[in-house]
């Protein structure tokens, strides 16, 4: 009962406003809305009405179209970048210095003795192609076990179609027929290139009489060195990694053997075999403050042995630098003692150094630079920072926690970086497929480093994994770059150091300080001076901010609506109200129509026009309301003419017996 009452009241309240028909509603809306167009439609003459009608339609569609564009723009999450350049007090970068050579040769010699003898004997045979030519005088017999695990072979290419594979230490020759998997991908490319090249050559031949010099040299080059990699020893599933240059082949082969040997050596022994801080870092000066090797943090780097990091910020606060110029930077004197290099492992001599952020792992192979022995290298640093917004603006990661690859470098307590992710990804693939970890990367839990004894096919497995494009793509896809990317732009310049005049006393003092001896133990080939300092402008920061915020969106939407139609959110609410009203009218009409069928008879019984609800209601509230029926009520005369707007014509209620009924029940 109460609900019905309430509904009826609500109905009345609604009906009081806009009116009982759609037309009235629309006219009322147009007249009273705050939107600019509609008012014109009803207020103008017939011709202008039409013009205004189309104008309003046009503007409304324009508004909606542009709103679409704006919302689209917002959802594309654009960013604007701001750039700032200048000098400010900044954290001095962490400086990692390593020797290009990982271990002292004198220390690792016992481990590498067999290997070195092998390679020397092999080179002897290779460089003198006629076999059995005075190489008998190798006094102790060679232990061919290492060799047989990963042999180097010589490919005789006199006959291009039928290459002969020569094992260096064995006399039996095998023809290349069983060389089923003999070419790797690069070689395929090369072969394709040959075809194209040959065509080129013939073209050249046609124009000029003498054959091009390139042709003659290819014929001269008959032998090729290759590394034979088998899935396990003695199996036929082998590939030959071809090398155009014997130097490359020897180095690659040596590295494979070397990692296999070293992987069995425990970490503390490897650290012991590397260069010690006190031997390597001879002098250190930061700004005006002296420092020494104790200020460096030792880290074992698989590529470069012992590396030393200045200002890593792991235990203590990072140092700040508040002045530009070499006087206020870091000055180092290093000794790389070149005579103690492993001859076959690394052919480049110098210090490897890298500038990086505090608490990040130094990936020297990627970002490191060389410093040459016998020179002074000055490095001016500009910190190039890029601060990006995370999701949804760009696809980057803040700390790597949302990357599906387990960061193996977290055991060094270092922060996430894309290089760490890629390497971890590779290593986990390696552990999965080959069953062991590669020596150059940290180990996942429960996996050991690969070596020839335990994993005879590891080199084959590693080599195929390394050249697999698919594996790399998986890693690229699963790793994300960090949002805050800091790079150190370096301006590198070099000069000879020490000068001839100062050479004597400098070597003397440094030797005395290091070895407490009066003999000169240093020379030009080992000594390096480094100056690392901030440039005059030491930072360039590019920071992103959202180009489109919700405030921007709202003001743009409002601007559009306002520009075309002078509207606001209230106008939208007005419009919504009208829609609700028209719905009500529809409902009333429908109900009325339904009831009209049912209540035909009761309605017929009414002799006269029944009073409408509105009439009854309005009669009390609005004095201006008059019922102008044919039989005009006498009170109509009595009422004085009232100022004010005329009430809308609520005649539609008359066809609603439902309401009449309900009103009746109410009265009762």
């Amino acid at each position, binding site marked *: 009962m109460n609900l019905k009452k309430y509904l009826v009241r609500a109905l009345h309240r609604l009906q009081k406003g806009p009116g009982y028909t759609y037309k009235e509603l629309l006219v009322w809306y147009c007249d009273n809305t705050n939107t600019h167009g509609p008012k014109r439609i009803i207020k103008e003459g017939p011709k202008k009405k039409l013009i205004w009608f189309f104008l309003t339609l046009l503007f409304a569609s324009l508004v909606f179209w542009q709103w679409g*564009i704006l919302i689209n723009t917002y959802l594309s999450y654009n960013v604007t970048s701001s750039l700032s350049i200048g000098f400010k007090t900044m954290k001095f970068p962490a400086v990692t210095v390593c020797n290009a050579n990982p271990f002292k040769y004198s220390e690792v010699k016992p481990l590498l003795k067999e290997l070195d003898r092998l390679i020397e004997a092999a080179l002897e045979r290779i460089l003198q192609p006629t076999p059995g030519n005075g190489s008998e005088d190798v006094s102790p017999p060679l232990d061919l076990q290492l060799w047989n695990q990963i042999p180097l072979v010589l490919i005789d290419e006199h006959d291009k179609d039928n290459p002969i594979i020569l094992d260096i230490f064995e006399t039996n020759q095998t023809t290349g027929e069983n060389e089923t998997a003999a070419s790797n991908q*690069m070689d395929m490319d090369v072969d394709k290139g040959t075809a194209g090249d040959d065509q080129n050559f013939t073209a050249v031949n046609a124009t000029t009489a*003498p054959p091009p010099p390139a042709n003659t040299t290819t014929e001269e080059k008959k032998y090729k060195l290759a590394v034979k990699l088998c899935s396990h020893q003695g199996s036929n599933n082998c590939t030959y990694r071809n090398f155009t240059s014997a130097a490359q082949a020897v180095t690659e082969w040596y590295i494979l053997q070397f990692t296999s040997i070293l992987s069995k050596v425990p970490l503390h022994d490897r650290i012991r075999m590397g260069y010690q801080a006190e031997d390597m870092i001879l002098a250190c000066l930061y700004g005006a403050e002296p420092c020494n090797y104790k200020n460096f943090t030792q880290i074992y780097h698989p590529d470069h042995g012992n590396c030393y990091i200045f200002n890593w910020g792991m235990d203590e606060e990072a140092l700040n630098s508040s002045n530009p110029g070499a006087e206020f930077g870091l000055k180092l004197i290093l000794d790389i003692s070149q005579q103690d290099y492993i001859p076959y492992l690394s052919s*480049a001599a110098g210090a490897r150094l890298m500038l990086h952020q505090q608490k990040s792992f130094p990936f020297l192979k990627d970002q490191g630079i060389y410093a040459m022995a016998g020179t002074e290298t000055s490095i001016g640093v500009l910190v190039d920072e890029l601060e990006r917004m995370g999701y949804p603006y760009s696809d980057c990661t803040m700390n790597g926690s949302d990357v599906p690859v387990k960061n193996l470098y977290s055991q060094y307590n270092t922060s996430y970086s894309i290089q760490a992710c890629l390497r971890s990804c590779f290593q986990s693939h390696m552990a999965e497929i080959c069953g062991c970890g590669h020596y150059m990367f940290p180990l996942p839990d429960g996996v050991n480093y690969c070596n020839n004894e335990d994993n005879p096919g590891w080199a084959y497995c590693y080599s195929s994994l390394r050249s697999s494009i698919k594996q790399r793509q998986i890693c690229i896809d699963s790793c994300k770059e960090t949002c805050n*990317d800091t790079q150190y732009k370096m301006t590198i310049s070099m000069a000879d150091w020490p000068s001839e005049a100062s050479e004597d006393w400098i070597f003397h003092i440094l030797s005395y300080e290091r070895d407490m001896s009066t003999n000169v133990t240093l020379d030009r080939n080992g000594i390096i001076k480094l100056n690392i300092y901030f440039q005059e402008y030491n930072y360039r920061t590019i920071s992103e901010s959202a180009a489109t915020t919700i405030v921007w969106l709202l003001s743009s939407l409002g601007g559009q609506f306002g520009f075309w139609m002078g509207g606001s959110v209230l106008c939208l609410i007005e419009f919504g109200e009208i829609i609700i009203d028209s719905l009500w009218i529809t409902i009333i009409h429908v109900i009325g129509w339904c009831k009209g069928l049912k209540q035909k008879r009761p309605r017929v019984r009414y002799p006269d026009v029944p009073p409408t609800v509105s009439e009854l209601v309005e009669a009390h509230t609005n004095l201006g309301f*008059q019922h102008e029926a044919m039989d005009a009520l006498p009170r109509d005369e009595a009422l004085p003419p009232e100022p004010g707007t005329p009430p809308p014509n609520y005649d539609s209620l008359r066809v609603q017996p439902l309401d009449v009924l309900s009103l009746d029940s109410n009265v009762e």
Partner: protein
Amino acid sequence: AGTAPGKKITARLKRTLPVRGPQAPTLSELMRWYCLNTNTHGCRRIVVSRGRLRRLLWILLTLSAVGLILWQCAELLMNYYSASVSVTVQFQKLPFPAVTICNINPYKYSAMKEYLSELDKETKKALETFYGFSEGKSKVRRSVEEWNRTGSDFFQQIPLLKVEDLSRTATDLNSGQKRKIEGSVFHKDSSIVNAGDSNDIIGFQLCDANNSSECALYTFSSGVNAIQEWYKLHYMNIMAQIPLETKEKLSYSADDLLLTCFFDGLSCDKRHFTRFHHPLHGNCYTFNSGQNGTVLSTSTGGSEYGLQVVLYIDEEDYNPFLVTSTGAKIIVHDQDEYPFIEDIGTEIETAAATSIGMHFTRSRKLSKPYSDCTETGADIPVENLYNKSYSLQICLHSCFQKAMVDSCGCAQYAQPLPAGAEYCNYKKNPNWMYCYYKLHEKFVKEQLGCQQICKDACSFKEWALTTSIAQWPSTASEDWMLRVLSWDKGQKLNKKLNKTDLANLMVFYKDLNERFISENPANTLVILLSNFGGQLGLWMSCSVVCVIEIVEVFFIDSLSIVMRRQWQRAKKWWNNRQGAGPGKPTQPGDVERQGHDNPACIDEDLPTFNTALRLPLPQDSPLPRTPPPNYSTLRLESAFTEQLPDTLELSQH
């Protein structure tokens, strides 16, 4: 009397009813109507306000709001063509750039002997006469004598002179006689260095062959520069006469230059390199030139995965006068970019490993109207002589070459040939050097207009290089390394390699982050309109509708009112003339008619009436029992009832 009040009523009605648009009798009425009915805020206040001060205040406020709108919108318009910069970093597989490697020495000296022996002899002779320098005394003396007998082409064409600065006399190398210098003197070196007191400035004279009095003397503060420059002129002359095929043979072959090659962990060889003949650097080799349609890419950063080559630099076969430094030059560039080795190459030292870490940046500028750059170079009126994509440098070089062909009749040696032209040489164009120097002077001083015509390209790729050097091979590995490399080189090379003949080069990506810097329009039309709308709405609650209203009222309606008045005035004047003729008196009501009683306003159906009621016209309702709309409210118009008491009286009667 019955009809008179009716007319009176309608007249009054008209007077009091709000007038609209063109029906307004006067401009002020129109304005009043506009102010009352416009959607713009402010105007209504002016009319509605009571009191002069308040009205004035509202006028001021409205005007200042209009002013603010205009100012702000002008600002918005001016900022419309501004660009904002966005930087995106993407980690991905990167295409490896093309790497072009050249030996600094263009041609094998031993092979060039037959072409250059004359010139070299004369250069040595010049060195001896000016500086008393000779390598092997007896040999040179003999050659000098020989040379004296034969006479010299080179010195006749471009004499080397020792200049006594103040007296402007020069000693000719050829005859030893002094002569007066005519024409202008150009100092090729900086004028600050070229102090007046040094009395042995060396230089050479270039004369216009057609008009020998027109000469220019180029002097240098140092003989090193003078000799080199002079040698280069003659060298270019000689080289211009040698056909390209021969030159390619004279230069280094891929096998000569490249000892080892390693890319992305795999071996590569000379077939991965494309030969490219550079006029000044001889044969250069481009790795990954993309000519066979495939461009190699890197999916791992770091030195192991880049390009590693060992170059063989045959130092003994260097031309002593042309190049004075040893090593190789490399340039990292895009596949469809022309390598300007002489301009932006990086030098590689011998007996060292040069490691070059790259960082890739791609930039994109907005072209017109945001900035003055060109997308493809198609809109630049300079023909691209290089068979590569447009760049500013290509445009400048092409422009210069074109000017050279136009004014000197032949093309300069260091740049490609335009169609139908050939390289300059003495035999055909004895005048070219003078012409070239004059033209080059103009070019540098921006008088040729090349710098104005050429625009920079809108998008470009850049590889920032970090170069560092290590000793290579290390003392420990030197021995085996050189032996193995010699073996690699094969039997063709009979000597053992020397480490100063070798250079190791590593080119790799430091990281696979591609930095993409792009300019975006800071404003789109949508945003501009939004901002306009915001401004209009903020100050005056105005919209385009208001603007149309303003146009309607202030232009169309006002114009129609003015026209109507003009028309009436003309009519009146005509009537007056007519009246002056037949002596017809002017109608007394004419003046009033201009106001509310003007004939245009008298309308039988009175459209203003209905609208004044703000109700739609009544329509016959379909239901017969529906009461018609309540028109009695017409009486309710308060102003109406107040102002027209007589109508009530009338109805009562």
